């Protein structure tokens, strides 16, 4: 399977409500890279994700996905902070909402991939919080298994559920060789999934740390994770005035 697309961000200027958020901001993401964007709340991490998704276009500069302007590139697989399921559609309906032509077999495969086999006819309210996130992940993978944009996908979940989900996401990304951008404020999340971590702070936003995490996310050991977590936390402390 081909690797996910490369991403290129060059934001010359982006203001919001009269405040300057980004100026001369540059970021390159290699094909197949799993990048974590971390930083304090409200710094602009989700805005960057929206730019890469082609949703936010009100800025000067360019956002390219595999050389295409983000808004014209294939729709990325987006996972929101909440599951953002459509409660009036069944699990199957939620998948078909974004992928209307999909076959029955593909629906079942997509559900199976996230451990929800046979739950196509269930309503989202019948799923636990973790299962709802899994369905959101299945939906994102169905739309674009090559580019995943994950906006704090593990917030408000029990630790055990988070660990399960992280293992699942790591496996799925490894299998599809996707490019993935994970937005998080939690060093633990950033130590588990990505192979690169970027810390952003300030107004206008600037990159204050760019860390490479060597071991493959799917095979990462506990001690790898603890080491990476320390590095990320240290970088965060150094960035805090």
């Amino acid at each position: 399977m081909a690797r996910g697309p490369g991403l290129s961000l060059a934001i010359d200027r982006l203001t919001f409500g009269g405040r300057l958020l980004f100026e001369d901001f540059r970021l390159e993401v290699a094909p197949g890279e799993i990048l974590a964007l971390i930083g304090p709340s409200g710094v602009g991490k989700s805005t960057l994700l929206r730019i890469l998704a082609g949703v936010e276009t009100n800025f000067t500069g360019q956002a390219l996905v595999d050389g295409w302007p983000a808004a014209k590139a294939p729709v990325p697989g987006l996972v929101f902070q909440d599951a953002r399921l459509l409660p009036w559609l069944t699990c199957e309906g939620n998948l078909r909402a974004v992928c209307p032509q999909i076959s029955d077999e593909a629906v079942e495969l997509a559900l199976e991939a996230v451990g929800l086999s046979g739950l196509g006819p269930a309503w989202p309210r019948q799923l636990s919080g973790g299962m709802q996130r899994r369905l959101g992940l299945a939906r994102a993978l169905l739309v674009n298994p090559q580019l995943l944009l994950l906006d704090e996908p593990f917030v408000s979940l029990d630790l055990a559920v988070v660990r399960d989900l992280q293992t699942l996401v790591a496996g799925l990304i490894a299998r599809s060789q996707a490019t993935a951008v994970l937005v998080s404020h939690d060093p633990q999340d950033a130590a588990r999934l990505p192979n690169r971590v970027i810390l952003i702070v300030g107004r206008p936003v600037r990159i204050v740390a760019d860390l490479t995490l060597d071991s493959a996310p799917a095979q990462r050991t506990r001690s790898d994770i603890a080491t990476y977590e320390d590095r990320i936390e240290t970088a965060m402390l150094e960035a805090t005035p």
Partner: protein
Amino acid sequence: MTRPPPDISASRPGGEVMAGWVSVLLLLGSWQALALWLNSRFLPTPLTVAEQIVWLTREGHLLPDFAITLLRAALGFVIAMLLGTAAGIVLGQSRLADRLFLNWVVVGMNLPAIVIAILCYIWLGLNDTALILAVVLNKTPIVITNIRQGVLSFDPAYEEFAKSYRLSRKQAFRLIHLPQLTPYLLTTARTGLSLVWKMVLVFEVLGADSGAGFRVSLFFQFFDLKGILAYTIVFVAIVMALEHLAISPLERRLLAWRADRA
């Protein structure tokens, strides 16, 4: 593979159905007792009224009267729902339209129904067009208000979802907007049906030469209580049948996804 949703419970619990029937029997029993006690020609017993219904169906005009009244009510209802829903969506989505026309809607809601009917009859003559227009003019502002409220309560999170997954306007309407409007549409339809019915009957009394309202006005001239009550009972039966055979099952089906409807 496509399977039916697991928990669409189309039927109500047995106890609830039983309570409904007991309630009807209690009402009829009380009526019968009161009628026997008063022993007046101004309050016939339910049995007498039932006989009258049978007689009016066989010998009178009950069926054609209700057919024409139903047709008028259905036309007025459908036109008002369509116009009101479209206008409600526009007002909910466009601030300019809302500022320009919300006062019109408020005025429309507060104009006395009978005044609108009289004006329509004067302007268009005593005909069905005037009657249905009067119904539409009375009902539409209420539909607009409800649907506008529904649009204003759209969850922005779903708008973001639609934008992120680049749903077309048509897809967004079908998948995001219509489901959020459905409870408002159902409530509007339910209250609308009862209102439209009542208006049609009153307007028929006022200026029609056919229909249930017209016939009731004739019964009134002869103080024919049996006839008036016979038409009233048939009217109630039709409304109840619509509620229990159409609206309630539709509501249970459309809102099956909600925990409170499961």
